[in-house]
């Protein structure tokens, strides 16, 4: 009886301490698939920016809608604020990543080929940051609680 009490006395406070809610969301396969798939679509669309924006406006709208859906999905996952902030930065029309690129393409009509190559590197790397964070999150099966 004394031993059982000892175990309980030791375990209970520690379980309460360690069992509190996670700091960040766990890995989500759907979110990972979305970001890697959207990266391919975004880079593919960027290749077309040497042509007139108006010729690709419907493709831009479709891709933008898909990105909005991915952001909405990530926004509603608990403890997922950092990934949501990353999406917001990537998609910001006032910024200088994918959202900003689309605005610039629309404003300029078409983009310089060398600029597209350089910009693709930045945008590819930015999508990679979201994917890398997601892939390194703890897998749900590994969570002890």
């Amino acid at each position, binding site marked *: 009886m004394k031993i059982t009490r000892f175990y309980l006395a030791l375990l209970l406070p520690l379980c309460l301490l360690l069992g509190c809610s996670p700091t960040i969301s766990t890995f989500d396969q759907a979110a990972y698939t979305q970001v890697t798939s959207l990266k391919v679509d975004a880079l593919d669309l960027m290749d077309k920016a040497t042509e007139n924006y108006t010729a690709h406006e419907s493709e831009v709208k479709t891709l933008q809608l898909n990105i909005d859906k991915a952001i909405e999905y990530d926004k509603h996952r608990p403890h997922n604020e*950092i990934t949501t902030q990353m999406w917001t930065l990537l998609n910001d029309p006032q910024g200088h990543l994918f959202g900003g690129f689309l605005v610039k393409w629309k404003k300029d009509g078409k983009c310089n080929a060398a600029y597209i190559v350089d910009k693709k590197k930045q945008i590819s790397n930015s999508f990679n940051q979201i994917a890398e*964070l997601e892939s390194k999150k703890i897998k749900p099966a590994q969570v002890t609680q």
Partner: protein
Amino acid sequence: MAINFKNVLATLKQGIADLAGNSLKEFITEATADGQAILNDLKDDLKTWTKQLAKGDISKDDFSDLVLGQADEIKMIALKQAGLAEVAVDQFKSDVFNLIINTVVGLIP
């Protein structure tokens, strides 16, 4: 059965110290590699863009957008590192929990 309370605590203390050391070491190695990659990229990209601007391959507006894009990219990397730090905290908590459970349960005959 007599339990050596001092030994249990000493085992846990050493185990937790090892876990903390390993988690931190891995995180610092990755963050340093990311930081080094940013510096190398920044240096190389600026050279490339300056040459492209001089040759007329990109406009002043393109150049400015690329420089500002680099700053946004660095913010993305910083956010990822902040996220990875949170992952490391959760992993550490989970590992400590498992260590305690396994150590204490291991004492039960």
